[in-house]
């Protein structure tokens, strides 16, 4: 799997992401600067990592979404290439129009940095094939604006088309407002675009991939992606 991690001013999770990708796919990603206008030839997966691009000025992800490299990311997505946005990366993909909706201020107005439980809704996508549908995974979140909001028609469409891949849930997988940490609509933690090749998610699977650091539930996402490209090759 040839991956590329987009590096923007103010991003701070790009090295965690590169470490997870290298560890699990066996191949270090290309680190691609925001001012570049092309991705390395043969890129399979583009990752927009987390952090605080441009200091969250204007709106989270708004300025990054207009960075020169985003044209290439948009073309990659339009060709059916896989794109993963995590945390600020999710906000950037929404601002870029690659994903519907917007991430608003957390309902309780506080920055949340803690582990959460996610229910994996589907296992038949390149992003979630490393999990079972209904499986609950534990991964961390660290964000102030993760409260997913979209207009009602969009939410109905997302649900109807099975485009919600991850939901905040209780440890047993039950949906419970008490476990929906940021107040997201329908407890949405991760959504797909209409063609199923762009995923945005607020939690950080890249931070739970090494036993020395705790749970390794994040591995399934990267292992699934690596398998996807191994089978395609």
């Amino acid at each position, binding site marked *: 799997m040839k991956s590329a991690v987009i590096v923007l001013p103010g991003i701070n999770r790009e090295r965690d992401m590169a470490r997870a990708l290298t560890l699990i796919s066996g191949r270090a990603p290309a680190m691609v600067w925001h001012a570049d206008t092309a991705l390395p030839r043969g890129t399979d997966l583009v990752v927009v990592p987390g952090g605080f691009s441009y200091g969250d000025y204007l709106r989270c992800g708004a300025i990054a979404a207009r960075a020169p490299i985003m044209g290439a990311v948009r073309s990659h997505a339009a060709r059916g290439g896989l794109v993963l946005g995590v945390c600020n990366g999710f906000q950037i993909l929404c601002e870029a129009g690659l994903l519907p909706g917007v991430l*608003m*201020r957390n309902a309780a107005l506080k920055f949340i940095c803690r582990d959460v439980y996610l229910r994996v809704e589907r296992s038949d996508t390149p992003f979630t094939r490393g999990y079972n549908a209904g499986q609950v995974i534990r991964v961390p979140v660290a964000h102030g604006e993760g409260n997913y*909001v979209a207009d009602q028609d969009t939410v109905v469409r997302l649900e109807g088309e099975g485009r919600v891949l991850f939901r905040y849930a209780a440890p047993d997988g039950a949906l419970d407002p008490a476990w929906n940490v940021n107040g997201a609509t329908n407890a949405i933690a991760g959504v797909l675009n209409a063609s199923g090749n762009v995923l945005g998610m607020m939690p950080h699977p890249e931070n739970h991939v090494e036993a020395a650091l705790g749970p390794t539930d994040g591995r399934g996402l990267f292992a699934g992606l690596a398998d996807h490209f191994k089978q395609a090759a």
Partner: protein
Amino acid sequence: MKARITVTLKSGILDPQGKAIEGALKSLGIAGVASVRQGKVFDIEIEGSDRKAARAALEQAADKLLANTLIENYQVDLK
């Protein structure tokens, strides 16, 4: 030319920051505050004197960057 673009949240979009400010105003005892919605103001200087071109440029700026039209409305005022 001086211009001002005002960006406001669409009605129906939850505004937790506005709610928090509303709560603070009420706790200060400021009379008659029914509700607060928070928005943004951009003061922009435009070169030249072509008002029509300036307005078009400002609307482009608001559409492309200053407002997220999924959740926000904007108003362009050219002085």
